[in-house]
């Protein structure tokens, strides 16, 4: 089931068709309505902005900063969230008590708390990492907890009848059963971590794609804004491919 999903996500030239159609339509609109270039730019100009940004190394530097913040935030948030979510199964009363708080905290938009995070952790990279952590933590907790509580009761009964302890049931049944849910949370959290790092940079920073895009927007340089967005989307695809690879490795190990 999982491998089928991953296989269906493999690259095919047909996947480029929508992008090609969009670019051609966009180019035609820019040619047909030249005044629209101020608002929407044009593919050639975006490509030039991309090229100059890459050639000067500026865009790569900002991408590396945002990628690092997002990746670290993703790793910390997802790992801690998965551990907390799974441990809520192990200490069920704590899990039941914490659940409404997790739901409430997870519903608060990261935009609302990001300014406070900047106040608490300063304006450096660490604050952006923390915003990314907060963006991913609650999804990871909720998914891991759901995965743990959705374990087939037959497996737990089998463990009980074979004389397994609660700890053994947790290690041998609950955690492996919840793996798919944890992987799903990773897929969701890739985008959320990037958004978190981006929001952190948007609020206060001197580097990163958030800062790059914000500065370009303040100069009405739509081509550079869109070049930043293209890089951000590419970064999301790269991180998503990383999750795909991790998923393949883990599922291969399970079936080895």
């Amino acid at each position, binding site marked *: 089931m999982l491998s089928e999903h991953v296989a269906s996500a493999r690259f095919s030239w047909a996947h480029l068709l929508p992008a090609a159609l969009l670019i051609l339509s966009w180019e035609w609109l820019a040619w047909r309505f030249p005044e629209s270039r101020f608002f929407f730019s044009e593919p050639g100009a975006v490509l030039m902005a991309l090229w100059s940004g890459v050639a000067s190394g500026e865009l790569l530097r900002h991408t590396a900063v945002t990628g690092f913040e997002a990746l670290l935030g993703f790793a910390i948030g997802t790992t801690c969230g998965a551990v907390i979510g799974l441990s809520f199964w192990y200490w069920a009363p704590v899990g039941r008590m914490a659940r409404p708080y997790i739901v409430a905290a997870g519903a608060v938009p990261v935009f609302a708390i990001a300014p406070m995070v900047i106040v608490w952790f300063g304006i450096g990279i660490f604050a952006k990492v923390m915003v990314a952590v907060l963006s991913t933590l609650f999804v990871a907790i909720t998914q891991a907890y759901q995965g743990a509580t959705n374990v*087939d009761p*037959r*497996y737990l*009964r*089998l*463990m*009980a*009848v*074979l*004389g*397994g302890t609660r700890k*053994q049931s947790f290690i*041998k*049944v609950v955690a*492996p059963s919840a*793996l798919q849910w944890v992987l799903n949370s990773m897929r969701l959290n890739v985008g959320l971590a990037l958004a978190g790092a981006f929001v952190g940079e948007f609020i206060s920073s001197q580097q990163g794609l958030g800062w790059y895009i914000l500065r370009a927007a303040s100069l009405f340089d739509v081509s550079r804004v869109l070049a930043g967005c293209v890089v951000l989307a590419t970064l999301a695809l790269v991180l998503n491919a990383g999750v795909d690879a991790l998923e393949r490795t883990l599922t291969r190990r*399970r*079936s080895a």
Partner: protein
Amino acid sequence: MSSAIELDRVAFGYPSEAPERALFANVSLAIDYGQITCLVGPSGCGKTTLLNLLAGFIIPTSGELRFSAGHSGRPVGYIFQNDALLPWRSIRANLGLPAELQGRPAASDDARIAEYMDAFNLEASVLRQFPEHLSGGMRQRIAIIQALLADPDILLLDEPFGALDFFTRLRLEAEFRSLIDTHGKAAVLVTHDIDEAIAVGDRVIVMGRARRGIVADIRIDLEEPARPGPEAVRGHRLFGRYFTAIWESLRDAV
């Protein structure tokens, strides 16, 4: 013959139900070693609930369960209608679970696994496969072997052959019967199938609805000249008599 387990006036009702609406009450029963005791009855009479009581998944509202002496834990193995093999573990790893949980080396069960695999006509190559690659019949065989590796006194089986095709079912019934005869375990088998109960059982307990508990306890004796295999039991001269006795009890039990 010694008893592996004795039930003394056992009753069970769900907490949300009033005591007078208990699922069953006053069930007294002794399950003997070396015998297969079949539980039959209409849906909702509490067959699986009784099995779950024996397994310790639920506790009786009143009454007492006594296991034979010499065991610290509950000496039961449970085989579910749809097996509970862990899908992310290979068959060998699934069979290694009892040793892992008991803190024994994984290799300590190798000889017994080979013996049981042979008894169930399973090839050694099956050990490298995963549950999803096996047929329902093979998975049930593996589930029975897994239960046996924990060395229980009593095997509890909840309609284990119900989802299998007729041919596989007959083979498994024969293999299971032979295994119990060889190893002298006690077994409690829940089934909806009267033919199956007569074919594999030494005893058929008929349970009734609405707190009636056990309404009939029929001993199956097909030993003259020798007990036929499950595939031939329907041709036994006593088969019809037992079938009628169980059927009439079931009719009264509804």
